[in-house]
């Protein structure tokens, strides 16, 4: 019989054994330079931003991984950005980077999680963003596919399907590829695939395995709501952005390119007006924590982490350039005459690149606006 007096010390020892290592682990999680940062945090409104503390990656890995907010990290240099949400349920990626850096991307994920990758979201059909789909999804597990009730290794569910094993509930009976589920817009799949008998633009293993065409698709994973918001027509007809609601992070995809002007692909359904709508959507979703700083964080398709003010500057720039081109069109100016005015001069130092110059952006907007006005005239 265990008496009360004996139970208390036994309980205390057990508690210490259980909690002690956790407490020690928490202390060890704060590196020395961050411990002194606490002294500064108590004295100043200006708080050290999480992204100042890069996640150490193995030697030779040339990517950069930064904490963003909550459960979300950003892997940069792949060459685009990848958002990584890590938690108890597993790992969600927004974009997978280019195929040749998949090994580094997996190293980065393993630096913050020991769990499997369950979900990859394609923000748009840009090979810089989906090139790692095949390599990375193959290492993961689709959370919508049922697992064995009993212990033992996880089996390839497609083999189960082929073997005629019962499909179970949920999405298990679907023709899903093994590995992580890949969400994307239906138009992205249409672009990457082809009707039966025709050659597709990209092999099957790169395609999104679950698509949607509605304004929004939601999923709950790692203790937070994840919104996939359609921004169709921004840079292509397959754009979406992803909002991690509890972490308060938006992965904006190519709607924002912090290293350049947005590459609006009119041939594939992009338009300046939808690009501006998408930017305004992001501005409406973001809330700064204090005087236009902090709060909601935004991961662009490329480049540094943005906050609301950075998005506002980007939105203002695109609006002002659009207005300048529009004014030229209304005055009856030709494209060459408008380009000669240099409507992007004040932004070129920030965003013009040899691959996509301000002049090219002006041409895109001009052709988009004149085509739109021609369509409107024809409709009338």
């Amino acid at each position, binding site marked *: 019989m265990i008496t009360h007096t004996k139970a208390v010390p036994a309980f205390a020892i057990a508690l210490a054994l259980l909690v002690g290592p956790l407490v020690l682990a928490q202390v060890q999680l704060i590196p020395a330079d961050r411990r002194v940062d606490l002294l500064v945090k108590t004295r100043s409104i*200006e708080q050290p931003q999480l992204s100042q503390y890069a996640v150490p990656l193995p030697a030779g890995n040339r990517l950069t991984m930064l904490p963003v907010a909550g459960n979300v990290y950003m892997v940069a240099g792949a060459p685009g950005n990848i958002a990584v949400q890590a938690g108890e349920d597993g790992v969600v990626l927004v974009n997978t980077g280019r195929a040749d850096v998949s090994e580094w991307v997996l190293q980065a994920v393993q630096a913050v999680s020991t769990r499997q990758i369950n979900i990859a979201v394609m923000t748009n059909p840009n090979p810089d963003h989906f090139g790692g789909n095949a390599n990375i999804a193959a290492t993961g597990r689709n959370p919508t596919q049922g697992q064995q009730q009993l212990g033992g290794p996880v089996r390839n569910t497609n083999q189960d399907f082929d073997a005629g094993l019962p499909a179970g509930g949920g999405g298990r009976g679907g023709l899903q590829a093994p590995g992580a589920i890949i969400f994307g817009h239906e138009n992205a799949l249409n672009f990457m695939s082809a009707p039966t008998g025709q050659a597709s633009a990209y092999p099957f293993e790169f395609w999104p395995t679950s698509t949607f065409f509605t304004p929004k698709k939601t999923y709950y994973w790692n203790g937070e709501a994840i919104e996939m918001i359609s921004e169709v027509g921004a840079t292509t007809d397959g754009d979406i952005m992803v909002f991690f609601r509890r972490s308060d992070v938006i992965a904006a995809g190519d709607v924002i390119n912090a290293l350049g002007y947005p590459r609006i692909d009119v041939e594939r359904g992009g338009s300046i007006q939808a690009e501006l709508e998408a930017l305004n959507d992001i501005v409406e979703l973001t809330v700064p924590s204090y005087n236009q700083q902090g709060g909601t964080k935004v991961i662009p398709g490329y480049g540094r982490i943005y906050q609301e003010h950075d998005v506002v500057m980007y939105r203002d720039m695109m609006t*002002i350039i659009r207005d300048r081109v529009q004014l030229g069109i209304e005055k009856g100016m030709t494209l060459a005459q408008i380009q000669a005015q240099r409507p992007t001069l004040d932004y070129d130092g920030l965003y013009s690149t040899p691959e996509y110059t301000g002049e090219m952006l002006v041409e895109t907007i001009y052709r988009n606006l004149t085509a739109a006005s021609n369509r409107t005239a024809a409709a009338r």
Partner: protein
Amino acid sequence: MRTALFLLVATVMATPAAAQVDIAGEWNRDNHEDQPHRVPGAELGDYTGMPINAAARQWAESWDASILSQPEQQARPHPAQYSMRGPGPGVRIQKIVDPVTARLIAYTIAGMFGRADRVIWMDGRPHPSEYAEHTWGGFSTGEWEDGKLKVTTTHMKMGVINRNGVPSSPKGTMVEYFIRHGTRLTLLVWIDDPVYLEEPFVRSNDFIWNPGQNVGPGAPFETVDELGDKPRGWVPSWPIGTRHTEFGEHWNLPFDATRGGAESLYPEYMKKIQEMMKAMPSKPATTSAAVP
């Protein structure tokens, strides 16, 4: 010999090894220095003495002050490139010392417009990755240099270097020297901006020790609806080709002399201004009442 030894010891003991001159304290701005720029702000179209390039000029000419009515712009402070300049500020500089090792970890600066507080890290840490966030205060590190505190700042937000639309880019680097002479503090600012400047922009701001000063607690600004029926995403701007001529007209300066640029920083430019003035049409004398 003894005297020499005494002097040597006294000298070594009197001066810290790194020749540090603590800048902590309450410092009030010396507003009679450049008052029109530091208090009301530079006039529209006044780019005199600024080595800005054509891109900056186009930005500034296009800038419409109504843009500050956007809800997402109403609460914006000034970036570090400008925040020590005005309006005000009366600043509190605090020294953060590790209580165990007595090592100087950082200086914090509070009191700028919109509480764009700053932290100057003194512990030798590197600047963050190019992918890290930018803030109003930027990321600053300090080191002692001949009794002056040299501060290098990166990761600043897009903002202004004058409150009349002259831009400062997030690609800029700022080097400041905090130079203390007793109860006076001189801040020499050196901004290198590859996007908007033809050559580095240098200016100084002076502060006076003011121990009775009270820097208030931080308060977040509240944004309100100032747009009325303006559509979503409304972004006002002046069209390309706009010329803000009022400043030159007001002060009887040739328009070209108000445009700034690297050449306008040097003494030789005075001759050019004189030639431009000769070419100006004579202006009838105005009474002070006629001056707005």
